[in-house]
């Protein structure tokens, strides 16, 4: 029964918590979870399902695979995928600054879901648009930051870097890399940056890419959101909508 040792199930008041073992590969975990859901489906009562992936950084494809499996086996659930060891993620990804976990959140804001102590999280799943992880650093080429919820980056996102959040992505600096907001399918997520010059933006299942002939630089903060299935970019404050800065942007294939 080695497969069952790498996923552990804990009943909650209104649902179930599943913990993933840190050592196992994602494919092993997915297989073990599938078996658990198949054999003990009755044990997953309650509307909430929380999956604690520890310090593991899941890619978009993996997040979507996981969600598809759960939807197939259990039907609709309030699904949360959280990082119990959120501080470790940035360090492992090369984005951490070595022993300064404070960079992950800002004292002035309510604690973000991934950074909350495990005990509190189990009883009261935090879902809300007001909560965000604050990351105070420049995300450089080759680094990837993932976040369950919204993320605010105080710094730049450079070309070759990726920011993936299940909520909104806000960059208080220049966004020149790739940003994916609403990574689990939320189409109302937004990408906001003081200087929005990304190579590519993804919102939910939509993909917008930078035009091959980049337009002149806008010096105003801008927001990217989905309107009628297309990603459009407009000034953050003004009402007047600029035509989509990405004429080539099209409704991307849903990833997964």
């Amino acid at each position, binding site marked *: 029964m080695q497969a069952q040792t790498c996923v552990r199930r804990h009943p909650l008041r209104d649902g179930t918590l599943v913990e993933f073992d840190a050592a196992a590969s994602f494919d092993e975990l997915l297989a073990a979870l599938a078996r658990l859901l198949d054999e003990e489906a009755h044990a997953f009562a309650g509307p909430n399902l929380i999956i604690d992936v520890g310090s593991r950084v899941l890619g978009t494809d993996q997040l979507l695979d996981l969600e598809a499996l759960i939807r197939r086996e259990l039907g609709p659930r309030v699904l949360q995928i959280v990082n119990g060891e959120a501080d470790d993620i940035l*360090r492992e990804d*090369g*984005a*951490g*600054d*070595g022993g300064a976990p404070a960079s992950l959140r800002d004292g002035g804001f309510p604690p973000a879901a991934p950074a909350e102590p495990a005990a509190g999280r189990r009883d009261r799943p935090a879902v809300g648009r007001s909560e965000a992880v604050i990351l105070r650093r*420049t995300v*450089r*080429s*080759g*680094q990837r930051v993932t976040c369950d919820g919204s993320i605010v980056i105080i710094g*730049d996102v*450079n*070309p*070759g870097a990726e920011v993936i959040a299940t909520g909104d992505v806000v960059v208080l600096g*220049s966004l*020149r890399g790739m940003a994916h907001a609403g990574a689990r399918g939320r189409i109302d997520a937004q990408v906001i940056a003081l200087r929005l010059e990304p190579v590519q933006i993804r919102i939910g299942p939509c993909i917008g890419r930078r035009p091959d002939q980049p337009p002149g630089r806008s010096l105003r903060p801008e927001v990217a959101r989905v309107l009628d299935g297309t990603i459009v970019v407009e000034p953050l404050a003004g009402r007047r909508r600029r035509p989509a800065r990405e004429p080539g942007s099209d409704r991307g294939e849903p990833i997964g």
Partner: protein
Amino acid sequence: MGKSIVITSGKGGVGKTTTTANLGMALAQRGARVALVDADIGLRNLDVLLGLENRIVYDLVDVVEGFCRLRQALIRDKRCENLFLLPAAQTRDKTAVSPDQMRALVAELKESFDVVLIDSPAGIEQGFQNAVAGADEAVVVTTPEVSAVRDADRIIGLLEAQEFHAPRLVINRIRPAMVSRGDMMDINDILEILAIDLVGVVPEDEHIVVSTNRGEPAVLQNSSLAGRAYRNIAARLMGEDVPFLDLQSANGGLLGRLRRIFGG
């Protein structure tokens, strides 16, 4: 107790080895005792740039494996008596040495030298990990090209993750005429992305090709503009405050100055 500085870039061909050879020579000419370590095992080049290829008997791998003592492998430069080279092995590869062994080696060198410059191989794999293992500081070399800047950014991220808190930047092979025409990234474009301290800008210079082929670092020639730039960088590395070269007027002449006056 000296300090060790790794010269690195991520991308190949941007001038790490040229920078190491020239900075080493310039620092030695200022009177510092300098050791150059070629960490590019399997692709040995630093000895050629210094014209010392014919003097190699033992190399870095021999030292690490205990075939010889460190001082037997060190080659004294033929022009400057306080400059030494620890050559790389050409017949081995990066896996012949571990980061721990490099750390011990560089620590031993720091006991008898003021400055230890480590020439890193391109890439982010074990060769890079070995090169940075023993270093106290890092100098990142880039050229004004989008790909080189992106790789430099990647390297800076990796250095920061390894607790190098203030890597410094050398922008190499800049062509002032192309920059003023808007055909090449300028210094500000690069600094805006990389956001680290600039320690020097080296212009493209034909002297470098000649000096590489002859094994005579460009800093030995007074007529070389790149050589002057490297001498200035060496001074800044030793904590001096030296103004940056005015590359526009040095190359653009009267026309370049007029263009700047009229805001072109």
